[in-house]
């Protein structure tokens, strides 16, 4: 049997916050994914907005390569404010 594709569900819990991944579900199409997401993930007013994305459209970084992927950020301490020496007497900085 051809089973329904997998969808990832993202919910904005209230305006002002970003959508956050809450889980996944199976549905035949986007409309059904939206209805199922409402029934499965927002039975107690957990959200004001829902995104559904078919899982196969998501490209994820690989944990095996995360060291190489994030390495350029790790050795650039000068990107942080604490890298710079400013005397304590200087205020509001």
């Amino acid at each position, binding site marked *: *049997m*051809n*089973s*329904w594709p*997998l969808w990832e569900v993202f919910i904005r819990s209230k305006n002002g916050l970003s959508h956050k991944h*809450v*889980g*996944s*579900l*199976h549905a*035949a*199409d986007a409309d*059904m994914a939206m209805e199922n997401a409402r*029934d*499965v993930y927002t*039975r*107690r007013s957990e959200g004001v907005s829902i995104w559904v994305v078919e899982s196969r459209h998501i490209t*994820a970084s*690989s*944990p*095996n390569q995360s060291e190489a992927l994030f390495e350029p950020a790790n050795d650039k301490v000068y990107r942080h404010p604490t890298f710079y020496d400013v005397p304590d007497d200087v205020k509001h900085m």
Partner: protein
Amino acid sequence: MENITALEEQFQARIDADERIEPKDWMPEAYRKTLIRQISQHAHSEIVGMLPEGNWITRAPNLRRKVALLAKVQDEAGHGLYLYSACETLGIDREELLDQLHTGKAKYSSIFNYPTLSWADIGAIGWLVDGAAIMNQVPLCRASYGPYARAMVRVCKEESFHQRQGYEIMLTLSRGSEEQKAMAQDALNRWWWPSLMMFGPNDADSKHTAQSMAWRIKRFTNDELRQRFVDVTVPQAEFLGLTVPDDQLKWNEETGHYDFGPIDWDEFWRVVKGDGPCNRQRLKARRKAHEDGAWVREAAMAHAEKRRQRAAAVQSEVA
């Protein structure tokens, strides 16, 4: 081989540092298998658990009780779905999981192989069965596998309504007529021991506990959780004015815990192995629901495909 050992050591070091493991991370095959077994068993329990309670939806004594029970059974479906999704992140698909349930290869909690004979059973299930489940599930919110832990956080948030609605039913019955009180007592008599069995075999006989604790899937042993359940539940029974069906039950001043009588493990294993009062009926109902729903699943796919093709045709006309 050395490579695997090194990977396993790194993995255990991450677990020991209380890091969470996420789906794409390397994990030992045995860890993956253990999780699939446990999470799917948990998901199946939620879904099969809808059956004994669904039995009373049409016969709830009033509208307030009925909407509450409907919402509770709907929650159980939701819990099953969160857990199936978490399980699927381990690389097994939904169809295979359902197959394992329908062929009897995967288990579900034995408690759902007992029948719901009276309305009071709905109260006893909410109070005792959901109470025992909460005891088990709260520590699982810190399980080492991220998707499982996150699913459990959602489940636990919802579970407390279930227990309170059950206790309220028991309270109403036990403050009611003599017949109602007798119903409540009868339900407690029948559900008490199976609820204690929900925590699984004694630690000495539990083949999975040690490894699951080392992997921080479990945080407490079966016996620890069972004792905790007895300690919090006995005073709740006293408040109802009902008697726990165990003549060896006694407060132990020294240990600060209740001592309780031996569990009938023969009965436990009999039900696990398929010979409980409702095993066949439950599996038959699940299989039938799945088979009867096949045309709906197929029709939904056909409908989605038709709409996709129509949309594509409109687009190419515009172009």
